[in-house]
């Protein structure tokens, strides 16, 4: 099985980081993975995206035309990629930043006010991880142990305090109804 994820939003929202945590989780579970960022000046606040592929087969092209999962953290990203999502796929919307609804009825849509929740829970920069928590939960793939290990691989040792906060954010996402 192969699942392709596209994280899209503004630079600075931590999209590349959330993709990395997801990819590491795949690696820990012995899957084939690839992680491909958009790069260039947009990392200073323009649009940014990150493609992650997790597969039982060797990963071919790391570039995604039609994602199974879209995580949209701003309106331009939803506008741009909504139509590309595979039928039967999943769209996660940060509903505190995107007011409109998804127009398609052939995909599973989850609205999570991630930025708002992040602010309320003392982790204003971790809306991205709330969405990853929710994403894993919707696929029934939130394994606490693996998540923690994956986070440990992505957060450097000198920011150990951030590890707990990231974990908390993911749990908020997981538990959000």
């Amino acid at each position, binding site marked *: 099985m192969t699942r392709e994820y596209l994280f899209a939003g503004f630079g600075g929202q931590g999209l590349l980081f959330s993709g*990395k945590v997801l*990819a*590491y989780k795949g*690696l*820990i579970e*012995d899957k*084939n*993975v*690839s*992680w*491909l*960022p958009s*790069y*260039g000046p947009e990392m200073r606040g323009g649009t940014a995206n990150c493609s992650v592929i997790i597969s039982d087969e060797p*990963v*071919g*092209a*790391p*570039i995604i*035309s039609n994602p199974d999962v879209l995580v949209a953290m701003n309106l331009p990203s939803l506008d741009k990629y909504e139509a590309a999502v595979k039928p039967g796929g999943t769209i996660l919307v940060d509903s505190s930043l995107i007011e409109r609804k998804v127009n398609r009825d052939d995909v599973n849509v989850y609205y999570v006010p991630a930025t708002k929740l992040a602010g309320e829970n003392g982790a204003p920069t971790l809306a991205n991880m709330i969405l990853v928590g929710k994403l894993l939960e919707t696929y029934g793939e939130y394994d606490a142990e693996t998540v923690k290990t994956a986070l440990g*691989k992505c957060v450097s040792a000198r920011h150990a305090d951030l590890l707990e906060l990231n974990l908390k954010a993911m749990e908020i996402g997981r538990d959000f109804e």
Partner: protein
Amino acid sequence: MADKVLMKGNEAIAEAAILAGCRHYFGYPITPQTEIAAYMAKRMPKIGGTFLQAESEIAAINMVYGVSSAGKRVMTSSSSPGISLKSEGISYLAGADLPALVVNCQRGGPGLGGIQPSQSDYFQATRGGGHGDYHMIVLAPASVQEMAQLTIRGFELADEYRMTSMILADGTIGQMMEPVSFDFEIKEAPEKPWATTGTGMKRKHNVVNSLYLSPEVLEIKNIERYEKYAKIAEKEALAEEYMLDDAEIVIAAFGIAARVAKNAVNAARAEGIKAGLIRPITLWPFPEKTFKKVIGTAKQIISVELSMGQMIEDVKLATECKVPVSLCYRVGGMIPSPEQVYAAIKEAAEKAGE
């Protein structure tokens, strides 16, 4: 998973170089390869190595020339416009028969071009790039694992043949993360009795030089170098073959283009089209023998490139123009989609069936 880490292609090159015993890196910032410099800046001081941000690409390649003259494994990295600047130094390295590793993480050109991935430095890499008759060994990784593996191989080949190895990567492979294992067996650098390490008052002085004012001598130097190149072409050409045995439509693609093409070949096979792939891993020497194998069985070859058609010339030469060769491309930083390549395969298959 135990021994694998998730790493960017550029970082994998840097780590592999350190494993290969490279303790000297010189570079100048340019997107999309700066992670190599950043990695080296962090690691080299901790292992007694040298990281130096040079005043220019030109200075960097000449610092490489200096370290190589002194007999140590050394590298520099850049992206397309920077490689043009280094080309003078690369020619001198060739003329002085010095080993070195140069990484080109290609971006769109010409001129300042763009910063997105490209393969349009193929001619520059395989034909030399600088002035004079010479070649580099050109290695084209298609994964982060290969970024590491071919970096190590590049150092080994450079030392063995006393010439420059170039890693011809692109922005995508450089920027993407994949799991990579660094479990390599590495050949140590051979003795370098020609190096300028000081005579110790025990031998005649060594001279590292590319100047030969006598045309008779310079001619012999060039001919000898090309005899060495012929041996390398015979021995070191390398390609991956994928579903080639019964392939009627053969894709030729390297690096990121080959990754995309593989998806398309799989899709075509699922539709019953006999498609296959040749992925050159060495671009110089070009894996001619692999291409010659499909003369007679292939009805069409499609060269998939992130250029206006550069490798396609080598494909035609290798197949002696006995198989029709077409081009499927995107340029300027764009990458062909698997769908685009699949459509090209399908069209070729339909034409071949007529």
